[in-house]
């Protein structure tokens, strides 16, 4: 099903023309009807209906119920949310009930939005297909034999299937943008620090960001505008831009757009390249000034990421020790065995791989050769991006080298799976905002175009994205 623009839904709820309770039921029905796609881990019917009734009563008594009044949404299951377990799709966290909610969930609720379900992901957000979920694999809405991308594959599929008008994901190395590209919706990754990570299961803290998924840039921007900004509970958060995040007058005319040379070469499938080139041509016709830009170190970004990210994961996942929360091996003879068995049984193979790689690159003797060197190459990459943005306003390219791949195709080869992130990790390492926008189909599967902007230029990025959306569709 398709939803009206979020702004219109909220306006109608505030006027009493739509009931929040009906919207929640519509969404829960859609979830039931589309069960075969396995996008959802758990639904939150009681709490969602209770919140909806509260909103309808508020409106009936003449109060306003917020900018997202009655709008249902789905959160990736690594957000702490009341009313259902928070599992991060891991056996380790099965049965975990959040004692508090994520800051961004609180901000959405304060404006009247209602969380109706938790979406599937690769366990702990480690992966690019949802095949690493400890529970099940989500199906691509366009072809059930293919993956929806990941790790926010459940959230992306939810939006593409019309289960809710928007969904939350996370984006540590592309986990919001890549699945958005694979299912054909908008996926937004903000500047590092623009949205609080408090109450989100931590993965790699130097690149973890919240991600927003919706059908249109306008809907995405409204959600960004509600959740962006500083939070005492996440010391890495940065201030909002003064004008907010709703797109201004959108036009690509006169905008300097750099096509990333390294993202258009070898390894990109012909179908993807064709769609991206056609879209760039349309932008040029709409008045954009197109040039080719080269960032030579982009070819190293994936190697940098697969050192830094496991290192941070090995640190962040040390908290799962079987003592304070999560799975605990009951028959352990002592504390040491309780740790090693709880972690052996609670973690899936991908979490184990990343923890061990992280342990290796951080161990004394290897630290300088791996971790520190990766941090330095990260600096090189940042410097190249800064100089690229002196010449152009935005950078564009595909969001992934291929369209959605077949379920099982890469499951046995961890390294092949990592390559799905090859065009997305750089934005996380540089800390810049980036968005994936649908730009046509190749053999019946969506192709996503990625646009990047300098740090803290989220408003500018959302504005140009709205114009690009109009130009390429």
């Amino acid at each position, binding site marked *: 099903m398709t939803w009206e623009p979020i702004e219109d839904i909220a306006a109608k709820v505030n006027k009493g023309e739509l009931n929040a309770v009906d919207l929640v039921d519509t969404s829960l029905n859609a979830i039931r009807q589309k069960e075969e796609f396995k996008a959802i881990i758990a639904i939150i019917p009681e709490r969602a209906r209770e919140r909806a009734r509260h909103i309808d009563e508020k409106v009936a008594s003449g109060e306003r119920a917020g900018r997202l009044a009655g709008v249902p949404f789905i959160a990736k299951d690594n957000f702490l949310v009341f009313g259902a377990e928070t599992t991060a799709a891991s056996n380790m966290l099965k049965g975990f009930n959040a004692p508090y909610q994520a800051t961004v969930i609180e901000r959405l609720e304060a404006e009247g939005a209602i969380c109706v379900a938790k979406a599937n992901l690769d366990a702990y957000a480690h992966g690019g297909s949802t095949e690493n979920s400890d529970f099940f694999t989500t199906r691509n809405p366009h072809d059930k034999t293919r993956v929806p991308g990941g790790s926010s594959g459940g959230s992306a599929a939810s939006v593409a299937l019309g289960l809710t008008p928007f969904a939350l994901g996370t984006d540590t190395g592309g986990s919001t943008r890549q699945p958005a590209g694979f299912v054909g919706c908008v996926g937004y990754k903000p500047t590092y620090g623009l949205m609080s990570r408090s109450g989100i299961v931590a993965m790699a803290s130097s690149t973890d960001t919240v991600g927003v998924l919706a059908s249109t840039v306008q809907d995405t921007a409204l959600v960004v505008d509600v959740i962006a900004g500083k939070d005492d509970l996440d010391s890495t958060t940065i201030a909002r831009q003064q004008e907010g995040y709703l797109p201004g007058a959108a036009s690509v005319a006169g905008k300097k757009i750099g096509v990333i040379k390294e993202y258009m070469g070898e390894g990109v499938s012909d179908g993807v390249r064709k769609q991206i080139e056609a879209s760039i041509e349309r932008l040029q016709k709409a008045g954009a000034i197109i040039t080719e830009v080269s960032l030579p170190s982009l070819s190293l970004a994936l190697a940098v990421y697969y050192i830094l990210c496991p290192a941070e994961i090995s640190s962040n996942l040390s908290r799962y020790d079987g003592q304070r929360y999560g799975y605990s091996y009951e028959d352990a003879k*002592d504390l*040491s065995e309780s740790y090693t068995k709880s972690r052996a049984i609670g973690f899936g193979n991908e979490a184990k791989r990343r923890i061990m790689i992280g342990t290796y690159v951080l161990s004394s003797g290897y630290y300088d050769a791996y971790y520190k060197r990766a*941090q330095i190459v990260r600096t090189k990459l940042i410097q190249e991006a800064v100089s690229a943005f002196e010449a152009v306003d935005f950078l564009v390219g595909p969001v992934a080298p291929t369209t959605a791949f077949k379920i099982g195709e890469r499951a046995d080869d961890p390294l092949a799976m990592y390559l799905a992130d090859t065009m997305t990790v750089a934005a996380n390492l540089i800390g810049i905002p980036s968005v994936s926008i649908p730009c046509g189909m190749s053999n019946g599967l969506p192709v996503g175009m990625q646009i990047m902007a300098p740090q803290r230029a989220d408003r500018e990025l959302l504005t140009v994205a709205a114009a690009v959306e109009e130009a390429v569709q």
Partner: protein
Amino acid sequence: MVKLSTDDVLKLAQLARISLNEDEVTEFSGELSAILQYVEQLSDVDISGLEPTNQVTGLTNVMRKDEVRDYGYAPADLLKNVPAVKDGQLKVKRMIG
């Protein structure tokens, strides 16, 4: 070229507090070696004169007051997810045999 032996993997697993069976050790030694070989391409990069990036938006020492705040959470609720509780405290297995 890095090649992790089964002993190397066992050492890593021990450091990471994860117990592995023999099959897993063999499987991981191949997979982890392949990943390390891939990231090894950074060893050829010229990094002279560059400093590591630890924080990407340039924030340093974000301070706040060290004060108790009431978030309204009941201790009993916070203990609900703990595997073993005794007298309002976490209970763990013995440490010394």
